[in-house]
């Protein structure tokens, strides 16, 4: 362990208002820490730069999961264990329940939070493909007020996002209109447990009389940040499931992915697996599957 606990201040104001005041008083000086599954790894490795940390763990407002008539609101501090065990999420948002089970181990899921997964901004983030496929919106809060933004616009680049220095990710809003949609989510990693994704793809589509509508494709590890595959969506949107459509979608996907070579995989492998996942999804659709 190379981290030095005495080199870092950590405080726990215990309520959201006090945290926001702190962020406003010294913008950019305080690093929020929730379940610590990223920050504490950096700390132990001696890579944690922030001298000042503010704990979000256990702040009630951040942990709410509210089932509203048209959407489900999930506090940014809700843990993946809470998400995977929540009956309404299993029913309305099965892809998110599935992604929650992908996060590390039970001991990681009991601490890792949905908001932390997004703010950390890994291109391989487990929850992102599902959130992108579900048209998630995020709610950002500060002493100046709150704003809602489509999640697909949250990431700006590798580990960069739209949060201003005084802002906090507050909640994730997911529409409850996907029960009739065909849904797909698959992660390819080195092994079933604990592995970080080499590639993951999430998809939702409304099939009406054989025509694909409201197509959403969300991908992990195919770009510097989790992203919608919009050209591929366009290639499928309004089309019937034919061989030609599948070919066009395949070309669009190859054209828009920007994978890299890194310790976990190669760009070439990622590209090929991405196409395989797309074809698996379309194959399931044509066989009447992908209900997930």
């Amino acid at each position, binding site marked *: 362990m190379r981290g030095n*606990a005495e080199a870092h201040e950590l405080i*726990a104001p215990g309520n959201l208002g006090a945290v926001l005041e702190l962020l406003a008083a010294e913008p950019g000086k305080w690093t929020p820490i929730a379940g*610590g*599954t990223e920050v504490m790894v950096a700390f132990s490795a001696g890579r944690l730069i922030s001298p000042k940390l503010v*704990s979000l763990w256990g702040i009630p407002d951040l942990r709410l999961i509210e089932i509203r008539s048209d959407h489900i609101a999930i506090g940014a501090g809700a843990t993946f264990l809470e998400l995977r065990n929540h009956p309404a999420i299993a029913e309305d948002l099965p892809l998110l329940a599935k992604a929650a*089970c992908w996060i590390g*181990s*039970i*001991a990681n899921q009991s*601490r890792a939070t949905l908001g932390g997964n997004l703010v950390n901004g890994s291109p391989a983030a487990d929850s992102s493909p599902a959130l992108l496929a579900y048209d998630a919106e995020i709610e950002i809060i500060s002493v100046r007020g709150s704003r809602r933004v489509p999640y697909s616009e949250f990431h700006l680049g590798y580990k960069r996002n739209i949060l201003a220095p005084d802002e906090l990710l507050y909640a994730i809003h997911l529409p409850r209109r996907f029960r009739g949609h065909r849904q797909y989510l698959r992660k390819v990693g080195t092994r079933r447990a604990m592995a970080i994704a080499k590639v993951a793809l999430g998809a939702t589509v409304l099939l009406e009389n054989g025509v694909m509508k409201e197509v959403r494709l969300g991908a992990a590890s195919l770009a510097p940040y989790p992203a919608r595959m919009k050209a591929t969506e366009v290639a499928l949107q309004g089309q019937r499931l034919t061989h030609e459509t599948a070919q066009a979608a395949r070309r669009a996907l190859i054209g828009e992915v920007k994978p890299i070579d890194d310790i976990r995989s190669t760009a070439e492998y990622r590209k090929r697996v991405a196409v395989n996942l797309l074809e698996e999804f379309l194959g399931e659709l044509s066989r009447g599957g992908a209900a997930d």
Partner: protein
Amino acid sequence: MNEKVSERWPAIRFTVNGEIREVKTPPMKRLLDVLREELHLTGTKEGCGEGECGSCSVRMNGELVNSCLVPVLQAEGAEVQTVEGLATNGVLHPIQEAFLKCGGAQCGICTPGMLMATAQLLERNPHPEMAEIREGLAGNLCRCTGFMRIFESVVQAATEKPAAESEEVQHAR
């Protein structure tokens, strides 16, 4: 740490294995280090120090956590259970008995974490399927046993009666 230095830090209180404990220590200190170095509960082991291996697994407010990833300030007011809290009055917990009986422990470094992950699993799911056992212990790595005997130990523990009622445990004393 001398007296003067320790006075710099606010008191942090939490319960460990049913006893209220208070430490004066940097709030960013890992729960793992506080348990081992300040409370001298060295049953909890450090393996990877990054939440991958599960050697440092403890239970906090009824959930399994990696104590290497918990800054001690976040344990304030919590109920922490370590491997030392499994046995009662010198009588091993049925999970511990099962690991002994089935050869679920070899070098012992992963064992406290395995026991705590098993305790967590069986509390939520007293009769798990093999797939559920594998998932429940997926965050705990063992380099000795090849895992099969550990999984068998969990199956054994799930079929055991609680220690107080088990004649076998009484007999073994």
